[in-house]
């Protein structure tokens, strides 16, 4: 039998249903891969028993002749931003170390209901704030990829869903949950050569997901191919009365609806996404993507999104502002760590707890958020950013008059080495230049691998669609996937 860890979500599901192997065998194979992957530091907590229990339930259901749900027998990694009952949930922050939720997030519950099991809780940038997974209290995640220069430079898996990206690329999990506030699913997916989709804002419930910036946060799947993403996104999505911004709409059958023909579709190429100092290889891949779209039958149209250059600065007002408000709850009273210096009063306790509990990047963003929301600055910063956000959304609305989806690179570079950008917060923020605008507009967007650069590292292409048109995004991504024939994978060194 071939190695079970080489299989993706659909193959596992179908193999378990068809009796080619048991769910328990699959869980054991991946549990072993998890145990052997410690050098990547991708997991904060490993939960082999959870994976085995879910697998046994599936095997029993199959033996009893029951109809198996859509992810039956598939063990997955769970980003440690999703609350899981009885299993430590930290958002990769010291302030939540030891926190064991008494409840289950809606997204994770839906996945368990679909027959999936949990391999463990995945490392991430602290409170999902970062683009390289270097802000975690529990240490950096190491990308399974290495450059082909013979050097052993440790590479960033991207962020914030760095653990999710590393395990899917390294064949340590067939799929993993991610969350995306400004690109945290798409950029890491691009860095490690896997697929990942952020659905329309409101598709996946935010209930039980630790909040970063509530008007932007969206969960989504990260997996090896487009079809696996469609299957997993279907399982994660759906109306939830516990989230006030949850969309009260039926979940489309994205998997059944997959169609790689782009005949009659118009693919927009936004001219403002051609940024300074973009490596030639990114531009070349973009042109290749355009050729693939044409080959799939699409008409290519140039479009303009004139406010693109203001998306990042608007994002770095709105996201920190919302974060400063959301993270006010970590005060050492109801959950998480408490720091109580000798003789301290209540105010001292709050300040000491937050000083000791939050990492540098989290503090930086809370301070920026507090500053832009403070008396006298609110209108100049937050209100202005909210207006610019409306203009960015209007740009997309106008673009949809002449095209059905947009095609862009996912990130302005391939994966960089750990430490290469961490000294300059602004340089790190610029990594999200192509992913942030669609986040601000709440649109579905997906990264799909397109090829390798000269150093042998993956590069991703991004497809952005109209609100609620995940199907159009998945279909265009599938058209790229079929033509790219991307089969590269990191050689195992860990």
């Amino acid at each position: 039998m071939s190695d079970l860890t080489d299989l993706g979500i659909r193959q596992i599901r179908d193999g378990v249903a068809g009796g080619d192997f048991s769910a328990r065998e699959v869980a054991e194979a991946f549990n072993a891969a998890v145990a052997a992957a410690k050098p990547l530091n991708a997991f904060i907590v490993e939960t082999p028993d959870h994976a085995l229990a879910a697998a046994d339930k599936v095997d029993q259901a199959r033996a009893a002749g029951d109809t198996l749900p859509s992810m039956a027998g598939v063990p997955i990694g769970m980003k440690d931003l999703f609350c899981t009952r009885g299993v430590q949930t930290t958002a990769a922050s010291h302030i939540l170390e030891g926190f064991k939720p008494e409840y289950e997030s809606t997204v994770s519950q839906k996945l368990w209901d679909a027959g999936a099991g949990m391999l463990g809780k995945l490392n991430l940038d602290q409170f999902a704030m970062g683009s390289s997974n270097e802000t975690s209290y529990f240490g950096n995640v190491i990308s399974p990829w290495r450059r082909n220069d013979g050097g052993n430079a440790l590479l960033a898996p991207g962020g914030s869903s760095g653990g999710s990206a590393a395990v899917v690329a390294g064949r340590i999990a067939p799929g993993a949950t991610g969350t995306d506030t400004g690109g945290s699913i798409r950029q890491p997916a691009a860095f490690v050569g896997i697929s990942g989709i952020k659905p329309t804002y409101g598709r996946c419930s935010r209930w039980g997901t630790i909040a970063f910036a509530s008007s932007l946060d969206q969960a989504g799947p990260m997996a090896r191919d487009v079809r696996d993403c469609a299957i997993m996104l279907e399982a994660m999505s759906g109306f939830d009365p516990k989230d006030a911004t949850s969309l009260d709409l039926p979940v489309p059958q994205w998997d059944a609806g997959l169609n790689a023909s782009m005949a009659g579709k118009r693919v927009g190429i936004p001219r403002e996404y051609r940024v300074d100092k973009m490596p030639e290889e990114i531009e070349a891949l973009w042109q290749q993507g355009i050729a693939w779209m044409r080959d799939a039958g699409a008409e290519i149209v140039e479009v303009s999104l004139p406010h693109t250059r203001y998306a990042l600065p608007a994002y770095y007002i709105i996201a920190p502002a919302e974060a400063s408000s959301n993270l006010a709850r970590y005060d050492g009273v109801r959950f998480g760590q408490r720091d109580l210096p000798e003789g301290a009063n209540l105010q001292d306790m709050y300040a000491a707890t937050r000083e000791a509990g939050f990492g540098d990047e989290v503090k930086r963003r809370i301070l920026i958020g507090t500053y832009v929301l403070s008396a006298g600055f609110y209108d100049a910063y937050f209100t202005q950013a909210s207006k610019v956000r409306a203009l960015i959304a209007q740009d997309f609305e106008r673009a949809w008059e002449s095209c059905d989806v947009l095609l862009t690179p996912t990130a302005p570079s391939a994966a960089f080495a750990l430490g290469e950008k961490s000294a300059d917060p602004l340089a790190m923020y610029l990594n999200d230049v192509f992913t942030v605008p669609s986040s601000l507009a709440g649109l579905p967007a997906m990264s799909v691998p397109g090829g390798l650069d000269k150093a042998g590292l993956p590069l991703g292409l991004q497809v952005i669609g109209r609100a609620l048109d995940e199907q159009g995004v998945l279909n265009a991504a599938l058209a790229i996937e079929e033509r790219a024939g991307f089969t590269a994978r990191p050689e195992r060194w860990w």
Partner: protein
Amino acid sequence: MSVDTATVKRVAKLARIAIRDEEASRLAPELGNILGWIEQLGEVDTSSVQPMTAVIPNHLRLRDDVVTDGNIRAQVLANAPQAEHGFFTVPKVIE
């Protein structure tokens, strides 16, 4: 945009984060850089634009005004750093 250490300390106080002098000195130019960069938003003419309040048009739902949970005191308190007699406890606030 220049941010001085006094401003950093004032904002840190508002954010309830204790901050040491050397940290405030380190953060001042960093925050100044970031705030200077985001100030380019001032170039955009937004005089006829309403600030965005919801990314996807969605109406706020009302639910029936009934109790849907409760009687879970032990669960609510389970993760408290300190709890006594069924309450969260904090340092004394009234002398």
